[in-house]
């Protein structure tokens, strides 16, 4: 039934949807409206709360087909491992589950145990930034819907910039950013090494590198599903990253290697790092992990661009909610419809910002007053204006079966060699490709 449906064209599946809607509607009237139980696994508690809130909304809008959504929050690693094992064994999986972007492809190897969502997504396709579906697509089917766009933005500490005589609003190109960085980076205690850096780059996580690779037009996979690690764009992006640290001397490796380490948060709080680029959702770290310590100096600005007319930003991270094939077949359509309702409707996208603080995938909500609110954590500015301003030309991110392995290589050896050992970018990427081939990946060139 699932396969059949996937092969049908959009129109027929819409028909089918309507037919099923009527059928379920009729059925539920006779069945005295028992709420349908749906189980969900998440690894971030807020996601679970959000979905429960959406379930309440659903029940108000569809009193004839109520659902009873229960969620379990499980640790990130454990949740994915458990889900994988449960799908392998054929029992024990929930109806719905969150799958993180780096983990999704793991589930596409071998038999796929998720339900295609096209029929539920199609009605909204025109309203959303569609490339956001790409990371959760396999074999032409959409299997997951994200919580956010995750567009990259630049976070600045204006106090440090002002002290160095830099106006944050002039940093629209990477050239300007590098020049400003040279003024900002300073050895304040005179011991021969800088104490304040313009920025920091991750050596054990992917965000710093992937953003530049994608904005230069590179990335891990192209739209045709081919691995493009050794592309000139990637080489240039990694060269730029390495230059920030070694040639220009304006960046340091993030403390403990990544932008979520407590040491790195301390660096930001203590004013040792003047700026960094991370996805929009990193905004929530300012109150959550830094105790709003930078409320009087932190602002959000669009990413600098490499060239006029080039990509203005790209997307980073993400979590797609999927429906597993262990769901009771009678619930599939309701679950699909609810999932689209919870993530893709106008109201849902407004709550993505108001409840979760995430940038929504629907562009038509960007003017909504609920999004344009001033925030105390960012000097009382309206951050969303700047987030939206950066969305002119979003570089898409494509993924494929070896996306998780590529991320692992970047997180473990590639970026470490690039930044700490100053290995040439071409060599780093060649080594990565060689390793992927040994793991059975087909890489052209």
């Amino acid at each position, binding site marked *: 039934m699932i396969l059949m449906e996937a092969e049908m064209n959009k129109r027929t599946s819409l028909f089918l949807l309507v037919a099923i809607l009527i059928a379920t509607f009729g059925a539920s009237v006779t069945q005295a409206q028992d709420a349908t139980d749906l189980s969900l696994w998440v690894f971030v508690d807020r996601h679970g709360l959000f979905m429960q809130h959406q379930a309440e909304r659903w029940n108000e809008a569809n009193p004839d087909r109520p659902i009873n959504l229960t969620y379990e929050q499980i640790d990130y*690693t454990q949740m*994915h*491992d458990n889900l*994988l094992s449960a*799908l*392998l*064994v*054929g029992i024990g999986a929930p109806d719905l589950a969150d799958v993180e972007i780096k*983990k999704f492809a*793991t*589930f596409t*190897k*071998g*038999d796929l145990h998720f339900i295609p969502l096209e029929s539920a997504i199609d009605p909204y396709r025109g309203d959303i930034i569609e490339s956001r579906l790409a990371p959760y697509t396999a074999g032409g089917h959409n299997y997951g819907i994200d919580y956010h766009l995750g567009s990259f933005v630049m976070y600045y500490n204006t106090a440090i910039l002002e002290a160095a005589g830099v106006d944050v609003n002039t940093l629209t190109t990477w050239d300007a950013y590098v020049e400003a960085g040279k003024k900002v980076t300073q050895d304040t205690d005179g011991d021969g090494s800088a104490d304040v850096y313009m920025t920091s780059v991750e*050596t*054990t996580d992917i965000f710093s590198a992937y953003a530049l690779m994608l904005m230069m037009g590179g990335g891990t996979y192209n739209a045709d599903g081919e691995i493009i690690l050794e592309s000139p764009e990637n080489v240039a992006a990694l060269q730029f990253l390495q230059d920030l640290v070694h040639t220009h001397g304006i960046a340091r*490796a993030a*403390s*403990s*290697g*990544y932008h979520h*380490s*407590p*040491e790195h948060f*301390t660096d930001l709080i203590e004013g040792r790092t003047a700026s960094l680029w991370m996805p929009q959702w990193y905004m929530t770290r300012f109150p959550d992990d830094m105790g709003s310590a930078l409320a009087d100096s932190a602002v959000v600005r669009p990413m600098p661009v490499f060239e006029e007319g080039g990509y203005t930003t790209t997307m980073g991270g993400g979590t797609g909610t999927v429906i597993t094939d262990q769901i009771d077949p009678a619930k599939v359509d309701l679950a699909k419809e609810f999932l689209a309702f919870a993530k893709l409707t106008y109201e849902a996208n407004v709550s993505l910002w108001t409840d979760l603080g995430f940038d929504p995938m629907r562009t038509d909500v960007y003017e909504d007053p609920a999004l344009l609110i001033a925030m105390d954590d960012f000097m009382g500015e309206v951050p969303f204006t700047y987030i939206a301003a950066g969305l002119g030309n979003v570089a898409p991110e494509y993924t494929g079966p070896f996306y*998780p*392995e590529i991320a*692992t290589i970047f*997180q*473990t*050896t590639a970026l*470490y*060699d690039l930044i*700490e*050992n100053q290995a040439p970018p071409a060599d780093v990427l060649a080594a990565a490709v*060689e*390793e992927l081939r*040994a*793991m*059975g990946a087909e890489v052209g060139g």
Partner: protein
Amino acid sequence: MLKPVYTILNNKKVVPFVFLLPFMTVFLIFKVYPVITAVIMSFQNFQGIQSQEWVGLTNYQNVFDLVRFNQALTNTTAYTLGTLLVLIPLPLILAVLLDSGRVVQSTVFRTLLFLPALTSLVVTGTIFRLMLAENGFINLFLEATLGVRPLRWLEIADLALPSLIVVATWRWTGINILYFNSGLVNIPRELYEAATIDGANVFQLFWSITLPLLRPTTLFVVVLSIIGGYQVFVEPFIVYNGGGGPGDSALSMALLIYRTAFTSFNFGTAAAMGVILAAIIFVFSLIQFRFFGVFRQED
């Protein structure tokens, strides 16, 4: 009717099996069976309960093609050797000193040195994860006392192994002291007295009496260290946030097996790695047993 059952159950031939039944049931179901499944899996392309295909030795060939496998094997071997080099001589010497009668309240010290062994590995890993940070206690202490510039323990590949050995030393020294201590108290003191009368000095006593007589204990500790060292997982997992450390310098075999299974979804290769790891541990232990002459005795 009850009588025959009773007689059978009390039969000398049957009794041992009745006593063995509970242990063996659990042992066979939860140890032997999974081992067999894992070994079978290592010859398969395992994609789930419903889909497996026989691939012969392919998984084993793949394993040796992987750069990471060689790296993990080297790391783990270096870690095991490193822990052996520290955790055999150091506790041995400390145990001898504590047993020499020249330390006041030696039991108190044995107890204090043993306390780390009571903490879980997660707690141990977390404490050191924090203490080894660039602005963490250890760096600040080294700077204040020895004037050493802050070391990037958690961020530099060359410091990964030393960091993990520091952690292991803290966690295991006390317990190894206890093991050695138990061997020491079983050495008949007349031997020392006789040798002292013959004019042997402290080092000669140690070399010709203490060391040889501690052989069984040393064997036990060495084998435990090899088994533990090759299976190391939780410490790097916690200290390096679930990763293999800078440049995968702390990638252990167990971490790689875990990553291969759950990130790369390659259960066959993961199982093959597990079998190889088991073989390595087994061979090393066997060599130890031979070396220490265990197989000569049987009660």
